[in-house]
């Protein structure tokens, strides 16, 4: 975001942010992702849908190299962010993850105060010169996470004391606090009730203004509601990738159609 001239970025909204080519993922002998190539655009919400076990979460975790933490997992192929191969030997996954934030299925606030939860990322990446700046970063992140009003009076209360929906928005705010360029969300609403889901979905739509958002979801309705682009995964293959409206109204592949209409899944 900083290195690209900002003028062109505003102009071309459909910049390719992430380009993946022929990605293969193996868990020991299990071939989990087969030949996936996809171009994810900036300032867009891209949804990955598909039946469980289809590899959509695995692929998502490749985008910020979270799979590195699993010993038996191997990734082949090329994934580029802003034209740089993230699996290059010179790339430090720590720096990469600061640029590509992630929100998880279950809200996972640290057993610390709300403030410390948000400040954790900025602190480890050394983003604030002093306490005032850190306060500012925390407030900004909480505002972007649409939770500032609810927690501004109790920043020192433990993050684990919040409700499920609040916890998930706190985790989103925590991810946003490190100023990422891409936000990966792994079924962020699966552990939430409908009201909290609606709040988080609203938030995702707002986040699109600043980030490339990739969301894995089980719910087709959610994909339809929040995303502009949708990729359908099946048995490790990327079956179809297109505008969300096209996927849901006029899919090209028969498997996509079956899934959309509820015959497989």
């Amino acid at each position: 975001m900083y290195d690209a001239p900002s003028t062109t970025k505003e102009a071309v909204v459909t910049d390719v942010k992430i380009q993946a080519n022929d990605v293969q993922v193996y868990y020991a002998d299990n071939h989990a992702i087969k030949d996936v190539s996809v171009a994810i655009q900036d300032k867009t919400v891209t949804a990955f849908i598909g039946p469980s076990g289809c590899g959509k979460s695995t692929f998502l975790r490749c985008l910020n190299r979270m799979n590195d933490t699993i010993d038996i997992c191997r990734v082949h192929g090329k994934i580029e962010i802003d034209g740089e191969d993230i699996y290059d030997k010179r790339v430090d996954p720590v720096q990469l993850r600061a640029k590509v934030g992630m929100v998880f299925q279950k809200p996972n606030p640290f057993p610390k105060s709300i403030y410390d939860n948000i400040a954790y990322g900025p602190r480890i990446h050394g983003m604030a010169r002093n306490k005032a700046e850190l306060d500012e970063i925390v407030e900004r992140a909480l505002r972007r996470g649409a939770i500032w009003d609810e927690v501004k009076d109790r920043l020192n209360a433990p993050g684990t004391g919040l409700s499920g929906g609040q916890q998930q928005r706190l985790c989103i705010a925590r991810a946003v606090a490190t100023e990422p360029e891409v936000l990966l969300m792994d079924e962020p609403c699966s552990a939430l009730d409908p009201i909290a889901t609606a709040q988080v979905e609203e938030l995702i739509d707002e986040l699109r203004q600043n980030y490339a958002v990739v969301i894995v979801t089980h719910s087709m309705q959610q994909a339809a509601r929040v995303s502009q682009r949708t990729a359908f995964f099946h048995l490790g293959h990327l079956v179809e990738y297109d505008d969300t409206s096209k996927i849901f109204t006029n899919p090209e592949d028969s498997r996509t159609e079956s899934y959309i209409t509820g015959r497989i899944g």
Partner: protein
Amino acid sequence: MTDVSMESAAPRGTLTTVDARTKKRNAAEKRFRAYGLTAIVIGLFFLVVLAVSIIRSGLPAFTQTVVEVEFTLTQEQFDEAESQLLKTKAYENIFIAALQSQLEQRGLNVAFDAAAIERLLGKTGGTIREYFRANPDRIGTPVSFELAASSRVDGYFKGRVTRDSVVDSRFLMVTDLDLVDALYDAGIIKSAFNWNFITGADTGVDNPGGAGIGVAVIGSFFMMLVVLVLSLPIGVAASIYLEEFAPKNWFTDLIEVNISNLAAVPSIVFGILGLAVFIQFMHLPQSAPLVGGLVLTLMTLPTIIISTRASLKAVPPSIREAALGVGASKMQTVFHHVLPLAAPGILTGTIIGLAQALGETAPLLLIGMVGYIARAYPEGVVSGFIDPNSAMPAQIYTWAARADAGFYEKAWGGIIILLLFLLTMNLIAIILRRRFERRW
């Protein structure tokens, strides 16, 4: 977090170059990882040092320096010696003459007297006389005598005693060492496997060479028998009750709390319990393996109960439901299905509990099972349980407390034997687990 450096975020550059801060963080990462590895290495280092010092100090206990002299006692010599006033002295002279002639045969000429022989080998005359009086048919035939060298001579060969460290005394003179060297050159003095250490009994404080651990091993054996016979059925019964039948009430909670606390009570407190209840109150015999076994049973029970409950818990509920479903009673379900399936785990836990009990020392000292008690083998099974005896670890402690290098060697040797037993028990437990472990 105290290590926040409040410097500004470097403008995010390309991912392929690592910025200064990340370098610093990665260095911290490496350091932290190194601390962890160091900790493991330290732990393993201690293990190696322990193992090396046990083996290095303990192995000499299994060898004994002996003097082997072959000679023929004629009938005339026997009759003459028996007619003398100092009979053993006469035998001693015969022995010395034989030794001298053997040295001369090999062309070694060393002067020595009877006193030197006594310092080296103790009272040889008595041993020889005893032998020939018991075996009169061997008179006139060549007999090879293997006589144990004194503890100090033994120490000279094992490096405990050096020429520099010897102070002339009635136990050993520096000049004796010349004789020892000559005997060594002649091949008369040599190292032999010390069977007496494995089969023998404890000796007095002045005879480290003759001390053996055999009687204490028997004491430990009878104690373990008591522990096994009591703790296995009681432990299994208690576990079955707690795991399968116990209702959720204050009584069950009380038992649970007691078990988890007893598991952490210092072993010496169990010794006090044994002394006060079994010996003072019930008047059971002091120093008896029976009492030791009772104390160790109480100490081992929590361990066995905890591991047995884990094995019972590991049997899936579906098995119980299946049995109950065909009309078996709860009791039949447990004894016909759950218990057999949990048996390997229970057995493994019991063996490990027994191994723990086998190495326990402190409580035994309080009930009087100290090493110097172990002077003779029990006469029978009953006597094995109730006659005063010691146990391996207590015997080792007694030797260690005698502050004599000769006994230190025995203590280390005793540890090797104790550890061999423990190793065997643990190996059996591991094999059982490997063989019968079931994953549901």
